[in-house]
């Protein structure tokens, strides 16, 4: 949908007014919305951004009780793209792949909050090597083994155990 005001940019701000049960709607782009005032004379608040919201959760400056150490802690900065951690908490976007290594542990609580996990278990690109694939295979076999033992299916468990040994041998070679 294009902005009803300028007809140029996509409408990203949608205003629904209900006055005495009369509903009226207005679809504007962000630029035109800046000029809009409601019946209270207030402008539109900037769009709510989910990444920014999540990143904001990590902004220790605004957080609780980290008090005293503030201001003394050195600002961490990515040595590849130059982005700082506080820039990340502003935009919710990382600058490059290296940022993940530089900000490492500080990202984990955020990742856990978004995904409930901090560890990738999905697809591995072919070039990242067979080793990683084998490691993953051992992990999933171990999980299977545990389950079989819990179910007291010892014969099947023994088979899985042998498979694990085989894969581990391949890993060492």
């Amino acid at each position, binding site marked *: 949908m294009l902005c009803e005001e300028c007809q140029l940019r996509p409408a990203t701000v949608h205003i629904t007014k209900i006055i005495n049960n009369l509903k009226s709607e207005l679809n504007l782009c962000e630029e035109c919305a800046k000029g809009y005032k409601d019946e209270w004379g207030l402008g539109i608040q900037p769009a709510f951004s989910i990444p920014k919201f999540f990143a904001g959760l990590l902004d220790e400056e605004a957080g609780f009780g980290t008090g005293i150490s503030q201001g003394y802690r050195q600002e961490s900065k990515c040595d590849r793209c130059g982005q700082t951690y506080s820039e990340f908490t502003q935009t919710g976007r990382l600058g490059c792949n290296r940022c993940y290594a530089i900000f490492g542990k500080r990202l984990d609580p955020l990742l856990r909050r978004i995904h409930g996990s901090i560890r990738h278990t*999905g697809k591995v690109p072919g070039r*990242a090597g067979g080793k990683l694939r084998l490691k993953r295979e051992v992990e999933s076999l171990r999980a299977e083994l545990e389950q079989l033992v819990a179910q007291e299916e010892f014969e099947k468990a023994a088979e899985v155990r042998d498979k694990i040994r085989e894969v581990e041998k391949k890993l060492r070679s």
Partner: protein
Amino acid sequence: MDNDDLFAGTKCKWIEGSGPYADIVITSRVRLARNLEAFPFPQALTEVQQKEVVRAIAQTLDSSAVKNKFGKFRLIVLNELTAIERQILVEKHLISPEHAELKGYRAVALDKEEMISLMINEEDHLRIQVLLPALQIHESWRKANEIDDLLEKNLNFCFSETKGYLTSCPTNVGTGLRASVMLHLPGLVITKQANRILSALSQVGLTVRGLYGEGTEAAGNMFQISNQITLGRTEEEILQNLSSVIKQIVDQERSARELLLKEARSKLEDRVYRAFGALAHARIISSQEAISLLSEVRLGIDLKIIKNIDARILNELLVTIQPAYMQKLEGRKMSPSDRDKKRASIIREKLNVKFL
């Protein structure tokens, strides 16, 4: 690009509208986010670097391995299009609204069927999107995965052993996979069950949005359901979770429709025919009114209350009554009231109402 079918045609794969559960599921989309190791993420790049990213990806698409499997991709530089042309690609769901709006050098590569679109320099260097009609989410993934495999033979994607595929926004890290299914749920809306069912989805790691993705309202009883979690689950787990939830919602929608037919058939028929009547006769119609009336006609077709109308026509109309598409067709800028008139005439023509 005046006679270009991309901006004037409706041959987009998803518009065909056939496949499993096509009476309720409109589209299945898979999107993979990937970044090239050689460059910082797109928003940190200069325009020259952004061009290099486009070139690197375009070169790989030109390789015989890709061409043999998926045919020739057409590369479109978004900067070279008008705002209206970019908006048409959004209306056809071939690029995201953000991709149309972003600054800098960005492009999209499309296959012949307009089923696969590779967005370049969106939030990430590469977004591989496969969009199919009906419930074919596993099929979409299979295709996207295949393209990903072919591309990674030439391109080094950012990948970490523990965090998986690295993306500009941490909400996509891990698999980089976003799978979305667009559902038409008039039965659940009429019987007032939609909110209750859909609000429970966040508990299983899924989110609901409107027709045009992030931040849009649900128009015409269309709901887009997608996975929220991309890290810590395998692609198969993510897709399995989504499709099993979708199948349950489809079942609920089916029983809501049956209930309506059984308990309130004449009321339902009245509603469907009134909607059809309004669409068939209106001379001025807003996009919002059209989309909500088309939803009722779609329901009427699915329940065989209305016969002799191909459901495909409704998918086409979802695109052809959009502002940018109409303005391109007319070859001029149109005021909202001009558009409302044009829209009404496009609908009358499409529904082939000859008896008037």
